[in-house]
């Protein structure tokens, strides 16, 4: 099943998990964005494609589930500590074109390509991979800083949220999410278009459940 290229104007969401997105007790955008090195010298990150989380309610549902899965994984590994449990705090949004614009951004002549690829991972249909390839040469580390700063400038939000399972946490770290440089998130979709997004999501999800569960990657 293929849902095509992620359109430039589509929303991508990055969930905020405490404590991994925080430094000490403060939200840290550089931990929030954290780009891991790929096996092919690329930088990679994970996002949720808005097509498969068509409403903010869907985004938060996925975020709560991600935090729960992290805690379950740590429990299974015997490393879980209640005081360090993963807590979903909300999400920030950016557009796909903001990622692609990294190639032509000011001073970014050291980026050869930047894109977002729909890549289902661990049964997460909305999972989208951020892939950035750097041109070989000096000052790669400085380019990483430039990429992180550019991406953070493109995020809007925060879409703060408190999961039901975290009602015992007070104060909740979602209250510490800062307003990003791009300002507050605004869903400018019309009701009609939102209805279409929901129907499309249901159809895609249904097809994936029936035919695509064994396919780990599509675009």
């Amino acid at each position, binding site marked *: 099943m293929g849902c095509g290229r992620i359109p430039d104007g589509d929303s991508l969401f990055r969930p905020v998990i405490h404590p991994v997105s925080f*430094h000490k007790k403060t939200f*840290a955008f*550089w*931990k929030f964005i*954290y*780009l891991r*090195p790929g096996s092919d010298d690329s930088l990679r990150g994970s996002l949720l494609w808005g097509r498969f989380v068509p409403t903010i309610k869907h985004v938060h549902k996925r975020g709560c589930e991600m935090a729960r899965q992290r805690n379950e994984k740590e429990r299974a590994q015997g490393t879980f500590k209640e005081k360090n449990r993963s807590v979903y705090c909300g999400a920030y949004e950016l557009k796909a074109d903001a990622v692609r614009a990294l190639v032509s*951004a*000011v*001073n*970014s002549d050291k980026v050869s390509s930047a894109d977002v690829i729909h890549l289902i991972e661990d049964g997460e249909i909305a999972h989208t991979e951020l892939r950035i390839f750097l041109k070989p040469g*000096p*000052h790669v*580390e*400085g*380019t*990483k*800083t*430039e990429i*992180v*700063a*550019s991406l953070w*400038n493109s995020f809007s939000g925060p879409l703060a949220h408190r999961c039901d399972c975290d009602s015992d946490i007070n104060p909740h770290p979602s209250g510490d999410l800062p307003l990003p*440089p*791009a300002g507050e998130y605004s869903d400018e979709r019309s009701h009609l278009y939102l209805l279409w997004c929901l129907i499309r999501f249901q159809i895609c999800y249904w097809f994936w459940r029936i035919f695509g569960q064994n396919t780990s990657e599509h675009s």
Partner: protein
Amino acid sequence: MRGFPHTVYHRAMIILSSTSGSPADISSGPAEDYSYANLTGSSEFDFVGIAPIRSERQVLKTYFSSVAVLEQWELSQNYQELGEALNEMAALEGADEWRIEPSVYHAASYVAAKLREDSVPAPQIFTHGPESVVFNWSDDNNDNLYLTISANEISALISSPERITQRIDYSASQFLNPSHLLPFAHLGRPIILISRSDTDLPELIE
């Protein structure tokens, strides 16, 4: 490599030599007791016209909406904490996300020492991995200055909320030359440790 930046920013900072007293205490004493360092200048402002015709007080009052005020002991303490953080990062092993290579540690320590020597407010610190350390200053307007320090290179990056406004890459030889190191330490607007609004300035300097 790009040339030296055509846009540099004003930043004033007052450093108090006393070891006691709260920031509020500075309003009670005469301004002459304080020295200030004009850390950076801007070609966008009429920098040349300031000095000959205006007193230091007038310059402060007129051109700076807020002034970073910090005491020497506070600056020392901040840099001591920075040094401890670098030590801890260098001592980490394995896949710890905060671990840095020894060569990066030495380079970052050198830069930190130069910044301290020049009374630049201590930066925040983060990493992308073991091969670099990033020093970061931000101000109330969400303008940021980043110094990405790796073993043999430094990149200076100035970012506004709208875009990346400036990037300068330094090679190893330039990095080791203090005359090249100091100017970019003054780029951008260091974090305001203690600030006073314009309305507070008369109380501070008059």
